[in-house]
């Protein structure tokens, strides 16, 4: 267990989470005794091989899927339904094709019963911040993958969430687009006036996790269980192609390969 974990009171506690799926009447364990904490102002990544249950874990943290055993504690309270202080960015963008950019972004606010005018104002502000200005009336089919994911990000940020969850946000993007978008995420993250306090990202890309995060949790093959966690103490801005970063990447990769 890292030093940070012991000293600071966590915002979110993942306690002993277990999950099984039913596959043709056979029980398949997906997650086994997963425990860790998440602290204020932390960018945390969860890495692991595909099929290790990391996306399921993210859905359990959000409160979308209940664990079979164990619990998620948010600021001292047990989460039993979707946590309204969180929002999620999906790998597949999950945009509604018949809505334009601003309407897709506003969707994040509609459920909250905020008046139309106010919704639009907030949507426009966040659209500017994520670099979608000029594309307000574009439809998803008119957008590149990178721009689609910006819409996904704007929709998640428009509710001003305390915790932003990202499920493989860059993995369906062209490598160049992913490269640029990671930088944008870091820029948003470093601007404390707009960013959520906590980001939890699930990825299979170890290099990406080390580059972006303050801490990396490593899950094992299925059933996913915490193998190790690493504090990433490299100074920001980081050099993605630097020696120190590569050493950490190698160390983590050797754990899961």
């Amino acid at each position, binding site marked *: 267990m890292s030093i940070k974990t012991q000293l600071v009171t966590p915002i979110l506690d993942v306690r002993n989470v277990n999950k099984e799926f039913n596959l043709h009447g056979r029980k398949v364990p997906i997650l086994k005794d997963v425990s860790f904490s998440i602290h204020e102002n932390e960018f945390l990544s969860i890495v692991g091989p595909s099929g290790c249950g990391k996306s399921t874990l993210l859905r359990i943290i959000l409160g979308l899927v209940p664990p079979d055993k164990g619990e998620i504690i948010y600021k001292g309270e047990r989460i039993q339904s979707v946590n309204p202080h969180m929002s999620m960015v999906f790998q597949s963008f999950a945009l509604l094709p018949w809505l334009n950019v601003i309407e897709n972004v506003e969707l994040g606010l509609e459920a909250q019963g905020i008046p139309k005018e106010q919704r639009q104002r907030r949507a426009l502000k966040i659209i*500017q*911040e*994520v*670099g979608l*200005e*000029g*594309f307000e*009336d*574009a*439809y998803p089919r*008119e957008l*590149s*993958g*990178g*721009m689609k994911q910006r819409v996904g990000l704007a929709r998640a940020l428009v509710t001003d969430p305390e915790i932003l969850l990202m499920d493989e946000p860059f993995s369906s993007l*062209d*490598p*160049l*687009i*992913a*490269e*640029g*978008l990671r*930088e*944008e995420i870091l*820029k948003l993250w470093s601007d404390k006036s707009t960013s959520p306090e906590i980001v939890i990202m699930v990825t299979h890309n170890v290099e990406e996790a080390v580059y972006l995060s303050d801490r990396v949790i490593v899950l094992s093959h299925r059933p996913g269980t915490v193998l190790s966690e690493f504090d990433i103490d490299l100074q920001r801005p980081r*050099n*993605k*192609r630097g020696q120190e970063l590569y050493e950490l990447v190698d160390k983590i990769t050797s754990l899961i390969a």
Partner: protein
Amino acid sequence: MSIPKVHYSRLIGLLEALEDFGGKVDVAKIADDLNLELDDLLPVIEAAELLGFLRTESGDISLTNEGLEFLSDGTRGRKKHLGKKLLTLDHFKKLIEFINQKEDKSITKEELSNFLAKEFHEIDSKAVSEWTIEWGRHGLLLRYNSKEDKIKLL
């Protein structure tokens, strides 16, 4: 090349990666690092060169001072910078003149495509129209509403 024919986000990705390499790198090396084929990377390099953000010299690419400046701008600053840059291209200069001559200061996508074919002899003028709209939007020069099929100046 009259305008960039790659997605803006890819251009940004290349410039950011190039900056990580200290502003100058062998083309094959950066392609390998990004897991891209050279064929895939070359149009992005051409686009960056057209905009004056990057220079090619034998097998190397390097950031220009303007490229560095562009990178250090914030999200909005980049858009403004890009807009200014696009306005130096004949493509956008003439297009804006053309739209301004219209009574309602707007054109349809088909009119755009015909204009590009006639004015610039673009063979695939339909595809170039799409790039024009994309870059015009990024540079905050154009608006396009596909429901009404209207391209307007911003």
